[in-house]
Structure formats: C-alpha cells, structure tokens
C-alpha cells in the first residue's frame, strides 16, 4: 500500500507552504471546479422544495411555504415505512450477496483455455445490455398462465392449475434478486477481473514454490489483493442503499406484488404521478441525499477504525 506521510515533511514551528504540495492542489483545482459546476451549482434547485413550485413556473411567481412539503412526507408514513422495509430488505440481500461477483470473477479467471475464457467472459455480460422492459416481456412469456413454463409443466402432467410466479408476493423478493443477479453478475465481475489482471504474478510464483495449490492461491493471494477494490465498491453500495432500482420494480410491481415490491423510488414516482408534485419530490430527494451521505460517512468511519485507514 502506498502512502507518504505528510507530517514528516514539515517539522518545526514555522508552517511554511510547501510549493510541491501546493502545486498538487492547484492541479486538482480545475477538477474541483468542474465537480462544483456540474454537481453542486444546480443544487440551488433544492430551494424549490421550500416553495409551491410547479414545473415551469417563473421563479418570481413563487411563494415560500417553508417546511410544508417535508412535513407532508409524514402523512405518508405508513406507505413510506412499507417502502423502506422493501427497499432495505432488497438492499441488504444485495449487500449480503456482495461476494458473488468476486467469486465469479475468480472462477472465470481459473479457466485455462484462453478462447473459452474470453468467450464466456463476454457472454456472461450480455444480460446487462438487455433492458428491464425486455426482461419483463421475457418473464411474462415464460411465466404467464399460457407461458412456456406452464405449458411444459402441464404437458408433463405435473400441474393442473397454471403457476403464477409473477403474481406471487411470497417469492417476490427472491424472484427479483435472482433476476438482478442474472442480469448484473457478469457485468459487475468485470471490475474484479481487471483487478485480478493487475495482481503481481510473482506472488503466485512464490506461492507455488512454497507448495501452495490453486485454492490456497485464491484464498491467500487473490482475495486479499481484491480487498481494496471490494471495500470501495462495498462502501459505495452502502451509500446507495436507498436506490435499489426503479425500472425493475416499476415493471414487476402489480396489484398482487406491490406490497412487497414498492421501493422508495417507486413510491415517489407513484405519488408524483398523480399529484404532479415537484416540490414534494424535491423534498424527498434532499432527504435521500442526506441519508446517503450520512450512511457513507458512518461506514467510512467504521472502515477507518477496522483497517486503520479511511477509504475516502
């Protein structure tokens, strides 16, 4: 791990501006300004959450309403709690399965033949390119009452009534997770494949000399080497806990599964659809940003305590 301790550079009572360090800051300044210009400047829009804004209304026609829309969120507390539950369950399942792409990348890496390896590497990323709309259409084609699954099971005489996988709220979370995995596993393993590619080959050589087999190598070399990347991604995912997805749930949530699949994003959308409530949506967005940043800071703090080093 590289780190240069800045403390050792300037000892002594007088704090002098080190030109080298300043130069670095100056170099980074354009990037900082860029980030501010594109990500933070538009945040003046957050002020709209405190007014009775309607899309397109001129700013000089606005009325200040204070915390009205924030308090309004409270009137939805039942549905918000339900949505929060759904969101957290799905997010936590996803976090728990965090190791899967890593495992997958390692397994992929173990394939000997270069052609097979490349072929499989490419093919497993294919579902990522298929939009959720198509995934839904495929699922409907497979799992509807006259779909492939029911036809086959019916022919084999295994069932009398058609199954209704997409209408079953008890398996809804599992179903969504499985779909999400199928769609994203190959794609998220790309990062880890890149990280594995960057591992120093001599480490493996040395291990073999010491009599390690491939499983030892995987466990004692590959996994630890992947840790930094994995941790950063894990941290980012914690920050994104409230954004488990939207389009997927918009498509799959129906009358029967809505109670399990309405996530925060979908709830906001549903509410906004009928009430055209720009200010309300903005208020929710502000709260979500605060929660995300808070979560990230906490997670980072914990990481700092465990690893001795902050991740961000």
């Amino acid at each position, binding site marked *: *791990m590289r780190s240069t301790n800045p403390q050792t550079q300037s000892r002594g009572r007088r704090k002098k501006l080190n030109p080298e360090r300043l130069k670095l800051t100056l170099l980074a300044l354009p990037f900082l300004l860029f980030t501010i*210009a594109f990500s933070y400047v*538009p945040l003046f829009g957050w002020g709209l959450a405190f007014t009775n804004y309607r*899309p397109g209304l001129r700013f000089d026609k606005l009325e200040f309403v204070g915390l009205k829309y924030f308090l309004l969120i409270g009137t939805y507390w039942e549905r918000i709690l339900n949505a929060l539950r759904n969101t957290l369950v799905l997010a936590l399942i996803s976090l728990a399965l965090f190791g899967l792409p890593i495992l997958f990348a390692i397994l992929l890496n173990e394939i000997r033949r270069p052609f097979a390896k490349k072929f499989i590497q490419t*093919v497993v990323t294919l579902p990522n390119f298929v939009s959720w709309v198509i995934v839904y259409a495929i699922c409907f084609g497979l799992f509807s009452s006259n779909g492939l699954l029911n036809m086959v099971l019916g022919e084999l005489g295994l069932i009398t009534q058609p199954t209704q996988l997409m209408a079953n709220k008890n398996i809804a979370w599992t179903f969504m997770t499985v779909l999400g995995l199928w769609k994203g596993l190959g794609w998220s393993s*790309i990062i880890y494949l890149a990280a594995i590619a960057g591992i120093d*080959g001599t480490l493996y050589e040395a291990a073999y000399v010491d009599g390690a087999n491939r499983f030892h190598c995987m466990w004692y070399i590959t996994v630890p080497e992947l840790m930094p990347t994995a941790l950063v991604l894990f941290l980012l995912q914690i920050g994104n806990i409230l954004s488990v997805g939207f389009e997927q749930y918009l498509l799959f949530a129906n009358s029967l599964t809505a109670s399990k699949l309405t996530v925060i994003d979908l709830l906001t959308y549903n509410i906004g659809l009928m009430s055209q409530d720009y200010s309300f949506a903005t208020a929710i*967005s502000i709260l979500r940003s605060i929660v995300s*940043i808070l979560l990230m800071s906490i997670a980072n703090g914990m990481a700092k305590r465990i690893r001795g080093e902050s991740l*961000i």
Partner: protein
Amino acid sequence: MKQKRTAGDIVFDTANIIFMLLFCLLCIYPFYYIFVYSFSNPQKADFAVLWPVQPTLENYRTVLNLDGFARASLNSVLRTVIGTTLTVLVSAFFGYLMTKQEMYGRKFIYRLAVFSQYVGAGLIPTYLVMRAYGFYNTFLVYIIPGLISVYFVMLIKTYIESIPPSLEESAKLDGAGIFQCWWSVILPLSIPILATVAVFQSVAHWNAWFDTHIYITDERLWTLQYLLQRFLNTKKEEEMLRRLSGLATNQLRVTPTSKSLKLAVTAVVTIPILFVYPFLQRYFVKGLMLGAVKG
C-alpha cells in the same frame, strides 16, 4: 511455472466449465428471444414461441431505413469514442492526483467529489444551469458533463494505490514532473482498470438518450439511441392515456408499434456495443508489473 494437475484440479475445472457454460446459455436466451421476435412477421408475432413466425427482414429494413439513421449512428459513434477516451484520460489523471496524500486539501476535494454522486438537483434546475453554460443544442453536451465520473475516479485511485511506490519514485529521481510521472509510469501500469472504465463509459455513452431528449432539438445532433428510443416508450403511452381519460379522447390515435418492430429496434441499438468488451479484453492483461518490481 510447472505444476502437476491433481485429480481435484480436474474435477474443479470440469465443474467450473460446465457451470459457466450453463450460465452462458441463460445469458444468451434474451438475445435468442429478440432474434425470434424481430425476424417475425409483425402481424403474427404474438404467435411466436421458439422460432420466428413467417420470417421476414421487414422489421430491420424499417429500422435501417429511418430518416436520419446514418447521421444518428455517426453521432453515436463519435460521442462514444471521443467521450470515452476523454473521460478515461481525465478521470485517470484526477484519480492519480487523489492518491497524493500530501496534497493540501486532498481529503476535502475527494470527499466533495464522492458525495456529489449522491446529490441530485432535479430536472429543471439542471436544465437551466446547463443552458446557462451554453450547452443547449451542441455536441459538447454529450462530452463535457461526463468528463469526470467519480465512480471511475474512485476505482482508478484504488487501483493506483496498489502500484508499488518505488516505481514512481525512481521516475522522480530521474527528474520527471507530475504529469510525466503519470504519463510514463502510472498510466501504462493501470491499463486494466482503464480498460474497465472504457468499457463502462462507452456503454453509458452509447445507451444515453435522456440528454438528447432534454438538451437537443436539432435533428442533426440526434444519437442513434434517441432516434430509436421513440419506438420503445410503452410507459409513456399508458401515462398519456391516463392523462386523457375522461376528456374528449375522441379519436386519439396511437400507432401501436408491433412487438417485433420494437425488438428489431432493440437489436439494432444493442448489438454494436456488444463488441466493445471483447475488443478491450486484450487489455485485461496480467504481468505488466512483472519486470518492473525486479528492476
């Protein structure tokens, strides 16, 4: 690297390959589905199950003959290539700078960047700001806003931190400046992660259509994804019908796009980008550091 393959190895390898191939079958299925429907006769597409019904090229002909198709494709390619290259370079340099712990205010700058991912301003303020910056109806709106992607910066920074500092120090001793250090030492060594970023970013550029939707009214600047997106908007139709229910939706005319046409559109817009990852796979190469450490 001589090593005997044990029985355990063989079992493992076989199981691995079988599992992978099965998974591959699952992954190819959607494209098979698209194939079946997009080559079907639009009137009869509802009957398709395992093979196209009354196979025809008419769907693809319709798509490829759309007005402005060639131009939109060119825009998409330009956007993807230029945008990706620039993003990779800019993010890489920023990522490199962020590894410099000795920078004044590094933590502040980095955190500001990281947190920027979690704040969103909403459609209209963003639009007004972008207009104020002069991005309305220009090609630059495709390139500039996406130059720094903090997600990539974080990945790159983490990757660079795993490079032994000795390499950079030896370059410094030879009198290299910051930029030179980055260009000749760090950049070549971070090829795998840069390739990763290139893959992600090119897909993002290729698939993007919302910025065209909002910032571009000039047809000559349309991207392929946007041109074809209009065919795929099912949710919008439902929303529109809901909006108009109860009013005089007398002769509301919705020309329904057949399923087979929609899937042909999907195929045309998806297949080109599938080639990026295989193309860039050669850069996911081990052993670049092999010689460097010894030296």
